[in-house]
């Protein structure tokens, strides 16, 4: 293998693929990055066996070849080089890099031993706008479970139907559902569960160069490929049945409070300082205003010994006065991903799920289970 490429391109590519490098692993080669010529481009790839990321950069290829080298070492080294041309040369299993006045050789492992990156071709195939995908991931992935006692809940369900796409995630206490659309309709209705971690990685390296993302799911629905302009990510899919979440979204409410998102978030954050000692309980009391005037929402938290915090925000209240308590983190998590100026909080009783929706768009629903407290 003999080629040259630009330091900046190599550095960027390494920073993308290194997200898939295994950190602790029983298979040492997965701590390496694969470097291979691919036509007139250079391909870099890494996998931790759950996801695999490949990235292509322009290069002047003189002789074809492939090798794997320790990812961390190559990334650290490359990032210190000046932004100039790098000459790369492989002799046996040693990779030589030459850039400006630096020269190094790194011992590698045979590329043939690198776990093959699965080809995902058959099955369903569609395209989605970059921003639509990014918003969707952003608004649901945080609601996925982080521990493994129910594996399906560590994923985000992607439900494709015609040109519609619904993303949903839940962790047993909350549920986030985002409705969006794809650019090319799918041939058959399909639902897959992608590990939330994989989607978060994906949204991280979606760049301005990528107008859209191609999504391909294999026939067995065991793997999905996300194809960007110069980057591909293959993720294993989680097998299992995702909860039937539509029945978990309350269809009615007894009280609906529309509030300014910034004020609401601010009040929650203040309360949560006081809620820190316990399980982060914040209490909300919604009081309608008299005759056509705005009502208010009280947000309070108390901590033994430290004291109490009560915040008040203006609210347009529809329905009965109501009281409900939530884990502060659950509320601030969802408020943090809504871009609209106002949100609605809908409740029925203080022990049934609360619903938070952005005002002005209808593509997002968030359901949170309250905490049961004495009032």
């Amino acid at each position, binding site marked *: 293998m003999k080629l040259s490429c630009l330091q900046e391109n190599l550095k960027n590519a390494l920073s993308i693929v290194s997200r898939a490098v295994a950190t602790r692993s029983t298979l040492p080669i997965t701590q390496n990055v694969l470097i291979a010529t691919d036509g007139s481009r250079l391909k870099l790839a890494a996998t931790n066996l759950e996801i695999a990321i490949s990235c292509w950069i322009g290069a002047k290829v003189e002789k074809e070849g492939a090798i794997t080298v320790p990812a961390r070492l190559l990334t650290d080294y490359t990032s210190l080089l000046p932004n100039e041309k790098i000459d790369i040369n492989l002799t046996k299993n040693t990779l030589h890099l030459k850039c400006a006045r630096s020269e190094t050789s790194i011992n590698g492992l045979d590329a043939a031993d690198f776990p093959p990156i699965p080809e995902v071709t058959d099955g369903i195939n569609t395209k989605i706008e970059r921003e639509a995908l990014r918003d969707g991931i952003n608004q649901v992935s945080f609601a996925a479970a982080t521990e*493994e006692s129910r*594996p399906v809940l560590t994923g985000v369900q992607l439900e494709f139907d015609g040109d519609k796409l619904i993303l949903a995630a*839940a962790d*047993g206490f909350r549920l986030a559902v985002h409705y969006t659309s794809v650019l090319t309709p799918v041939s058959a209705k399909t639902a897959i569960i992608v590990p939330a971690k994989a989607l978060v990685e994906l949204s991280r390296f979606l760049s301005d160069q990528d107008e859209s993302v191609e999504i391909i799911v294999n026939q067995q629905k065991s793997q999905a490929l996300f194809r960007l302009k110069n980057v591909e990510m293959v993720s294993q899919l989680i097998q299992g049945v995702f909860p039937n979440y539509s029945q978990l979204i309350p269809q009615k409410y007894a009280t609906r409070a529309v509030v300014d998102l910034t004020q609401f978030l601010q009040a929650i954050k203040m309360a949560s300082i006081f809620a820190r000692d316990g399980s982060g309980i914040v209490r909300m009391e919604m009081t309608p205003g008299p005759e056509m005037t705005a009502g208010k929402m009280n947000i309070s938290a108390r901590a033994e010994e430290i004291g109490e915090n009560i915040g008040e925000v203006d609210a347009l209240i529809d329905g009965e006065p109501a009281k409900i308590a939530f884990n502060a983190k659950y509320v601030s998590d969802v408020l943090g991903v809504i871009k609209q100026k106002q949100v609605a909080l809908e409740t029925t009783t203080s022990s049934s799920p609360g619903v938070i929706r952005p005002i002005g768009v209808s593509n997002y629903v968030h359901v949170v*289970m*309250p*905490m*049961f*407290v004495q009032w």
Partner: protein
Amino acid sequence: MSIRLLTPDVVSKIAAGEVVERPASIVKELMENSLDAGATQVTIESQGGGINLIRVADNGSGIPASDLELAFRRHATSKISNSADLEKISTLGFRGEALPSIAAVADIEVITQSTGGITGSYLQLRNSTVVKRERRSRPRGTTITVHQLFRHFPARLKFLKSLTTENSHVANLVSQYALSYPEVKFKLYIDGRQAINTPGNGKLRDVVAEVYGLETAQQMLAVDGAREIPSITGLVSPASLCRSSRGYLSFFVNRRWVRNSTLFRAAEDAYQRLIMTGKHPIVVLDVSLPPQEIDINVHPTKTDVKFRSSQIVYATVAKSIRNRLVSAPLPRVEPIAPQAPPPAMLWTRQGDEAPQPPTFRPEPINMPILRVVGQLASSYILAEDPTGLFLIDQHAAHERILFEKILAQRSQQNVEIQGLLEPINIDLSPKQDEVLKTRGELLNGFGFNIEPFGGRTYLLRAVPAMMKSGDLAEAVRTLLDSIAIDEEPLRREEKIAQSLACHSAVKAGDSLTGEEMRELIRQLEQAAQPKTCPHGRPTMIHLSAQQLEKEFGRIR
């Protein structure tokens, strides 16, 4: 074979001792008799913890009218006749002890109809003497009713535990024999309520479904070592399915339920490094080998056996399970925390001098104000104060903090409860079911919201807010197991708090941020007993500045 008295030389070779310790012992003996009689249906009733009444009815071969009174004489049995038979026991009973031992401590009624008998017979005994005998008819089989256990033995009665505990022992025994005899239909009624009902269709998996729940049954892996010697057959849990107590390990030797340390060890060793330390598998295994290879005559209650070649038994059981586990799809093993190195001599263990048992309102113990230095092996927090270095076990420390918080919230009636978006199904064993029925209120008080959902299935609707993550159904089962035994109510509350704290605390192996470590230390400083975890183990060890200087040879 008809019932005969054993000769004194045979009797002298039989392990003697107390047969009836508690109501469940009676259930065991009567069930074993039914199974020896070839019954395909056994119905057990227990009332008032088995003290008021135990009734076992079967459709086995019955007792011939001519033998009936003899059956209640000591050392009268139809199952062996000479010393040589003792070497090759193939029935569950062999001593001729059970019925007379029961008759000695309770009132008994028997109705039995034997194969080929013309009419059935009825016998009533009080204080071991026959008070009534008549002809009564009944379909083939035997019904034995035991009334007023230990009525004349108030001391023994006092020794018994609560009705809940006695019921749970009964339920457990019936569960075990149901698992051992899938072809027999077992029904258990506790105070009129059906607690167990197995199909008796010969399928072990169906019995497991009845006892441990369908979900568990579906995941169990079949072990089929029928060609091994000894032959090993049954069901074992995949590594991904484990429990927090040893109570789910059932072993049968030639279908007799035994509690044998060789078998326990073999099974647990087979799972070693596949499941987390502190977790235990679910195992239902029958070990079958020629009767000459075992000695059952080691314990008066026949609940243990001696293997002639215990090494071979150990190896075969461990290997059969291990092979099955390895051939199963790879489990997702949760990371196991690295084993802590044994503390070197220069460390003084802070908890050592007084490993205080957890007390409800402990004397406050001061803790130094610490500065966090870093984290070691994702398990210990390194911290210092002017006197030297502290190593803090993050799990133990967090357990302590949560334990006190739980008890404080509980005593202030201020428990923090988090609702579940979707209720979680919990399948309980008959034993756990009994505990929940009688002590459910207690769990309620700690923030669990559990609703019956038919049979032994329940819906979990809310949990104490701090426990949120992890396998919540399993956490509830663990809790029920931990409060099954009797003790003072206060101690029981502590056990619940311990169990909740253990479930919710950070685990060894979790890496913590600097902020999280400082917060943990801050909260530990406020704990009443910061230096020991709720189980009494130390939360921290201290290396003094002097010790350090000495080790480095700066001072002598």
